[in-house]
């Protein structure tokens, strides 16, 4: 253990003990994007005002989302009398009652009480028995919602930076890389490429300036786990990134976030600032010889900028269009320097892997898919939220045991997994396990972990049109098979949706799909036909009803369709140009 770290740890432990002082009440309220959208900040204000008015000694922290988004705003109260209990939803009007009952009287018989973390209380289930919480295995999310992400010392008090300290003081970069290799960790951005192998590509390069990029572009609708981790526990990503830098001999880290997501951006910037102050990144980390710098890079709205080569273009400040490979990023990456790109989720596993050993991690999961899956459940599902479960669980178990089934007694019809390019999966394939290869064999992808549930009121044609409209809108335009193919696919599926489609359209769409797959540089064009292909495979009946009978089987196709189809830039955008240089 380095001296710097020993001192930090002592400071952190003292702070942690203070927070657990029997005379203090510690209240943690989830205020990430999901919580804020239903006024969690108002709840924070009410708690602060009400506790101050009554003169109760307390700390109210804004923390990440525990993942039980269906019960937000979530309020986590720790006091000497009741131990640590979780309540939700707690709206502004309920704050006074909660304080009276739980904090003043120690009475936990409230309908909003979800469970108790530590103390056995009358009529309150233990959190380990609460469905959707107890059957999770939180590794990457271990601190999300548990600590104040604005205070790096709280992270340190929970074994934070212990792995970095151990690596820098007692291990060689090769040993750290070996641990990651042994863990079998695979990239969670969607491709599931072996992380140790990927890092290995960067090691041999002798260039003193090497980059590790952390990708939090996360444009996938239905996935919010990257932002959830960065906003709830930015330090685990910073530590993972620094460990990746150490293992590969890199000099710089860049965390790449879509602009406008102020929560994750501000939390990350603040955590980086604190890490510099505490000597955890920068020159001579923890007093050793290793130096590593981290910065945040923002990107405009563009889905394709999440692709690794397009991302490098965006970091350099250009339009996010993919580059052709080779050369691969490990040879020529951002600013022409050797680079390595990892997803937020991938990096957030690294500290625990280095601390507990690769073998520990490799025993979790199934087949070649090691570790856990961080899932975002949304749509027609009872317990919408962000969960971390062992890989190897079946989709049925995820829906029933984690998600709590489909609301209002309806039947599940389809799953939309892994982002818009993942396409649709029929409910008849719910015995598929969460495993990269198994999901692919079933015709879906695990992707970034988003699962959107659709019940039997949803028409596959309507949803497919939406996914194609998204892909068309987001095509960067570099490769014409994608640019034109998406536009044609959208035209045709809109025709079918409007009841004017013909049998031949189906074959024509297949042919477009093949060209797009063969002729596009990046996954957007290569997988862009996937929504249609998967819908053809599992929901051909819906298409045939539209084509043969000219009607929609569920009626959802009669609703208005948002259609942001436009070329970039739109005519209104260029109309203002008066500069003669631009006119030419």
């Amino acid at each position, binding site marked *: 253990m380095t001296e710097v770290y020993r001192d930090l740890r002592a400071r952190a432990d003292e702070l942690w003990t203070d927070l657990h002082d029997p005379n203090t009440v510690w209240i943690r309220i989830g205020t990430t994007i999901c919580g804020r959208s239903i006024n969690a900040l108002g709840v924070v204000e009410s708690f602060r005002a009400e506790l101050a008015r009554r003169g109760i000694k307390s700390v109210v922290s804004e923390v990440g989302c525990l993942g039980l988004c269906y019960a937000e705003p979530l309020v986590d109260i720790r006091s000497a009398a009741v131990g640590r209990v979780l309540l939700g939803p707690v709206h502004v009007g309920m704050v006074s009652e909660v304080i009276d009952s739980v904090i003043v009287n120690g009475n936990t018989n409230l309908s909003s009480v979800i469970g108790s973390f530590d103390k056995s209380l009358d009529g309150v289930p233990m959190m380990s028995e609460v469905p959707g919480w107890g059957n999770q295995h939180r590794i990457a999310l271990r601190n999300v919602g548990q600590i104040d992400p604005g205070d790096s010392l709280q992270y340190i008090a929970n074994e934070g930076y212990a792995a970095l300290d151990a690596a820098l003081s007692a291990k060689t970069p090769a040993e750290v890389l070996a641990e990651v290799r042994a863990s079998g960790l695979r990239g969670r951005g969607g491709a599931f490429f072996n992380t140790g192998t990927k890092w290995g590509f960067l090691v041999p390069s002798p260039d003193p300036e090497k980059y590790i990029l952390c990708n939090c572009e996360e*444009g996938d609708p239905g996935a919010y786990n990257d932002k959830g981790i960065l906003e709830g526990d930015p330090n685990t990503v910073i530590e993972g990134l620094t460990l990746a830098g150490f293992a590969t001999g890199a000099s710089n880290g860049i965390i790449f976030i879509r602009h406008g997501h102020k929560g994750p951006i501000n939390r990350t910037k603040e955590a980086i600032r604190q890490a510099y102050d505490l000597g955890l990144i920068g020159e001579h980390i923890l007093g050793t010889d290793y130096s590593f710098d981290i910065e945040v890079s923002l990107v405009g709205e563009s889905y394709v900028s999440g692709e690794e080569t397009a991302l490098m273009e965006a970091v350099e400040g*250009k339009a996010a269009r993919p580059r052709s490979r080779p050369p691969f990023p490990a040879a020529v990456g951002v600013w022409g320097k050797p680079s390595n790109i990892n997803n937020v989720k991938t990096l957030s596993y690294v500290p625990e892997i280095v601390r507990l050993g690769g073998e520990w991690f490799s025993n979790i999961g199934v087949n070649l898919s090691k570790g856990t899956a961080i899932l975002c459940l*949304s749509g027609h599902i009872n317990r919408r939220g962000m969960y971390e479960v062992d890989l190897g669980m079946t989709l049925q178990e995820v829906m029933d045991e984690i998600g709590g089934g489909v609301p209002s007694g309806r039947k599940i019809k389809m799953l939309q997994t892994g982002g818009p390019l993942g396409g649709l999966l029929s409910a008849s394939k719910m015995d598929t396990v969460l495993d990269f290869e198994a999901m692919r064999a079933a015709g879906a992808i695990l992707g970034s972990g988003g699962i959107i549930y659709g019940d039997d009121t949803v028409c596959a044609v309507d949803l497919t049109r939406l996914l194609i409209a998204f892909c068309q809108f987001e095509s*960067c335009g570099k490769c014409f098979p994608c640019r034109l193919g998406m536009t044609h696919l959208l035209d045709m599926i809109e025709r079918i949706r409007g009841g004017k489609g013909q049998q031949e359209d189906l074959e024509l769409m297949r042919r477009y799909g093949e060209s797009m797959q063969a002729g596009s540089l990046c996954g957007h064009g290569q997988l862009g036909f996937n929504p249609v292909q998967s819908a053809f495979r599992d929901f051909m009946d819906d298409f045939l009803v539209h084509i043969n009978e000219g009607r929609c089987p569920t009626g959802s196709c009669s609703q208005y369709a948002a259609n942001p189809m436009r070329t*970039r830039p739109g005519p209104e*955008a260029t109309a203002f140009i008066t500069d003669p*240089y631009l006119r030419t």
Partner: protein
Amino acid sequence: MGLSREECDDINNEVNSQTFDLREVTRGLLEEHRNDAPRTTVLSCLLAVQEQLGYIPEEAISEVGKHTGHSINDVWGVASFYTNFRFTPPPKHIVEVCWGPTCHLLGAMDVLVAIQTKLGLTGEGDLPDGSIGLKYNTCLGACSQGPVISVDERITGAMSAEAALAVIDITLNSSVE
């Protein structure tokens, strides 16, 4: 096309004299941005300008070019690529409606149609009086609380058509004061 370099410069100077202020403002912004960012690029400059002004004025395109050593065409290429940039002054309030798959399944189209009907719009766009503008968003990031809309970057979840109209009413009324 067809203009000589001198003619271009003449026109440019004429334009510059009319819009001196915005040019100065942009310059100041870019200086500030250079001070607090470790590395400035065309994209980071454009984001900084839009963050402050709410849009990219024409002057900013050439100023960013000068600042970063790129041609106007390069800068314009970046600015026109990302869909978040706008090139006309923003309305007082901007409403964004998410049309991602989750929100769509949970009724985003009803919300969208209600807002469009109320504002008298058929697609995206600003009201002529500059009071409010409507924008589509592919994902606002709060899928678990869908359908989601955002008003001036404040996200509100669990929307219905009625709730959205109430939010718009409050927004429009708040600007009267």
